[in-house]
């Protein structure tokens, strides 16, 4: 049996327009054989969750560099819980201070990738995490 490819939603949450990282990661995940849905800019937490459920993804990758992560990420995690979809893995990339990373990881973010992270690290993390989930 051939494994079904992993499905990942890559999204830009909030008003931040810096999408270089999100696009590079999306392309790298795609090159690694995953199915990637890229939302484009200016997504609200509600739009992200809705798209993730609709597209039936196993992973959500959110990019945010504007500093609004503490206001915009918790609602995503909460809505996923409300929808009984906490099994969707949420990873985050961006400029996120250490204390905030600790908080976000305690509240359901699987991993936070800060500047300097490699796409290889991200790919292998996502694969491993999905395997553990199954």
């Amino acid at each position: 049996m051939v494994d079904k490819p992993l499905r990942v939603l890559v999204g830009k949450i909030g008003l931040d327009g810096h999408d270089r990282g999100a696009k590079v990661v999306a392309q790298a995940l795609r090159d690694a054989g995953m199915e990637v849905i890229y939302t484009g800019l200016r997504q609200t937490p509600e739009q992200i969750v809705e798209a993730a459920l609709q597209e039936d993804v196993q992973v959500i990758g959110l990019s945010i560099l504007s500093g609004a992560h503490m206001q915009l990420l918790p609602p995503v995690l909460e809505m996923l819980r409300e929808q009984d979809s906490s099994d969707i893995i949420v990873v985050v990339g961006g400029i996120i201070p250490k204390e905030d990373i600790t908080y976000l990881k305690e509240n359901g973010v699987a991993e936070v990738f800060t500047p300097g992270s490699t796409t290889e690290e991200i790919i292998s993390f996502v694969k491993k995490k999905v395997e553990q989930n199954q």
Partner: protein
Amino acid sequence: MSDQENKEKLVQAKKVWQEKTDKMIEKRPERKQFKLDSDLELERVYDPFHLEDFNYLDKLNWPGEYPFTRGIQPTMYRGRLWTMRQYAGFGSAEETNERFRYLLDQGQTGLSVAFDLPTQIGYDSDHPLARGEVGKVGVAIDTLADMEILMKSIPLDQVTTSMTINSPAAVLLAMYMAVAEKQGISLDKIGGTIQNDILKEYVARGTYIFPPRESMRIIVDIFSYAVENIPTWNTISISGYHIREAGSTAVQEVAFTLSNAIAYVEAALKAGLEVDQFAPRLSFFFNAHSNFFEEIAKFRAARRIWAKLMKERFGAKNPRSLMLRFHTQTAGSTLTAQQPDVNIMRVAYQALSAVLGGTQSLHTNSRDEALALPSEHSVLLALRTQQVVGYEIGAADTVDPLGGSYFIETLTDHMEEEVMRYIDRIDEMGGSVEAIEKGFIQKEIQASAYQYQKEVESQERVVVGVNKFQTSGEQPMDLLRMDPATSQRQVERIKEVRLSRDQGKVSDALQELRKAAQSDDNLMPHILKAVKAYATLGEICGVLRDVFGEYQQQITL
């Protein structure tokens, strides 16, 4: 000795050297292939053969003379150093005003305002989409009341102010003008720049509101209003900075910036303006990235290309129309979160390349910007870095010191050729607006960004502290933390303003603005009137959203 004999001697000498070097390389090979960010393979050494038939007058000429390759003024920094202009803004207008006054006290010579994202996208601080973003990447400005606080005790006839604002540029400019009037300063005495460059927002920076054609109309309205009313204001800063940050190469940065510039010039001409009326007020904004010599050549090539385009393509006569004046910022994307102090060195070299490239103003990044907004101490170090370049190391003491270098001139020629190749391609597509609508520019940038990342991951490109020379157990730094109460205070202030203003005046002004937007009327006087009545940024942009519609992002992946 005759020229002919000289040349033969030169050929002979090179041959001898070449044979010797080839033998040496057999035993001790070079470390790797060397190439530019823009993918040109570099030669071992550059020599007189690279500059055979080099025509000094055509290619360089003296500084201040066409095609301005060596600089736009005859004396450059010997007359006056570049403007040291640190981009700053966070939290409330009060906090940013305090940072501005601190920077001016430390010897900074111009202001540069960073606005928060809701302001840049035309939402008031209490709009649902502003959630979490108020005061984060810049200062929140909702009404004239905020701008009054932002510029408090700063005499607007003595500083120049650059505002990084695009889609709502007309509104923020109107607020600034209103504050100047309140300070009793006549409008022909205020100087500064609005970024006002929408085309790069669609491909690189993301703070667009309206569709391209409607946005172009607003920009041309500003150009034409400025001719009469604010003659010394730079009405646009056509920006390659963000294109480069989004991952383009140096060649793409210049090519896409200049082709955007061509689109603005054509739009203004089409609206009936004369080229020499508005072209002297066009300004540019470039990135100073890490490849030192490539960057210097890039700045020099950009000046030469622009001068030729303006003269030959658009028939500009005023020398000021031909001069590419530019601001530079060091490359934010080269800053690393690992070993952040190393960023100080990166910034210093990048700053030096901007100065050797002849920049008119400069922002040096702070070492902690891959971690957070910069702290006051880090910003001071960044400002000191450019002061060292300006006052201590002699780099500013002679004009275009690298002019005539075999390497720099070869690189400058190469950049010009490659840039023109792109510009021709974009022309064939029908210009920048069409190339953006087709997703061409976006795709080109993305491909370069991806390539860059792959080079870092394969270690073909070394980033000190990231993929080589890593250390463990790094020292924590004191980072700037935002006051979470700022957002709440800002929301309260906008509510107060809404309650205390003359509502009838606001409604009338907004109604007039709507009519103007539906016709061909210049929007600026109407926006100014609305601003003075304390209409909010969100209300003004809301009217324009209604009439013009909103841009839907073209997703190219």
